């Protein structure tokens, strides 16, 4: 048996400790070990973005990171962004603007979009398409994904202005 490592992760604010082989891919750690099944496995080859999570302020494809690399990391998944009782403005906007069809890519889309809107709070359509280029939708529902992100950006900016 290959040697296991002692791993500590913070996922959605909760500390997790376990033993794992270094080669375990982070997406499997999240889904199968920690039962955090929001991040999806689409292509498993760094292309589709369904497995996107946020690590240390970066959008990361969790199929392309070994759990050993993530040891000590602070990870946010879709579960940490919002839930049925407290939808994030992006989740609300995807719901309102039909930003999902089958929904498989949606956790990755929304997780990536949270980071995009942090970096560019009021993006143009072109900036959204470029900033979301690492996430694929096999239903090809991109028009409404863009609309949803635009709507969420407007909502979040208005809320921020109201708070100031």
């Amino acid at each position, binding site marked *: 048996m290959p040697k296991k490592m002692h791993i500590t992760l913070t996922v959605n604010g909760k500390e997790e400790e376990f033993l794992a082989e270094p080669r375990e891919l982070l997406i499997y750690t999240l889904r199968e070990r920690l039962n955090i099944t929001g991040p999806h496995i689409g292509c498993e080859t760094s292309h589709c973005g369904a497995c996107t999570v946020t690590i240390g302020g970066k959008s990361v494809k969790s199929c392309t*990171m070994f759990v*050993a690399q993530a040891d000590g990391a602070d990870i946010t998944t879709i579960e940490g962004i919002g839930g049925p009782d407290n939808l994030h403005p992006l989740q609300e906007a995807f719901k309102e603007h039909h930003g999902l069809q089958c929904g498989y890519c949606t956790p990755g889309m929304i997780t990536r979009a949270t980071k995009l809107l942090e970096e560019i709070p009021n993006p143009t359509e072109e900036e959204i398409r470029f900033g979301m280029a*690492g996430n694929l939708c096999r239903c090809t529902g991109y028009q409404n994904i863009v609309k949803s992100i635009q709507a969420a950006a407007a909502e979040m900016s208005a809320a921020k202005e109201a708070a100031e």
Partner: protein
Amino acid sequence: MIPAAFEYYRPKDMEGVLSLLAEHGDEARVMAGGHSLIPMMKLRMADVPHLIDLQDVGGLSDIEVGTDSIRIGAMVTQSDIITHEGLATAAPILREAALQIADPQVRYMGTVGGNVANGDPGNDMPGLMQCLDATFHLIGADGTRDVPARDFYEAAYMTAREDEEVLTAVTIPLLKGGHAYEKQKRKIGDYATAAAAVQIVNEGGTCAAASIAMTNLSDTPIYSQAACDALVGTSVDDSAIKAAMAAMLGDIDPSEDNRGPVAFKKHVAGIILRRAIERAWSRA
């Protein structure tokens, strides 16, 4: 996809990295962002019994914009390049090229050092570094040494870096004139069907100096001296550009793959070089 098992190390300093490389030789590989290496390990096309993660090694993530050169640490990411304010003024071509690499998620992880050291002919930074006449800094058991980017690439995945050496930084001399990095790809995230890096100096309407390198059109990046020579002394008119395109086509050696047959790649290479020359000249 489950890669073969490996021993994982995360040394705190370069001394620790070098001693692991000395101990394990070609059974060990260093990893920066991992976005070239991990996919190859998942496919079991790369066998890495000892994986050395560089993320805790200090001093590899700095960007220093000096008066006569720019030094970029090996662990600087493509995303760092894109957002760095000093580079935006001193070397906007780096940002232009980095934005054409992969996608946002990959650019957060992918590093300049990994991109140039990996030796994948599809990577974009090697051609750009050859165009800008960059120097690569290596460290090994016997100390440090410098290798010009134009002498670094030997064949696909074969470079002047020895197995027990680590690429720590690249230095780019002060940029001159106008620049462009033009890339044709089938889709976002793809490697180039053809790409061209051009630096060109305009003195009173005459091309005083030019440097041209091509990406993914041979098993290494190709610095085309003949294409440069075809431009120098001209007004970069249509006949000079055609001469540069013809000279470049004599230097590349593309092979057929899922991006197209050889004739198509040569056709695209010519068009991409024309666009890059025209854009660089308009900025010179």
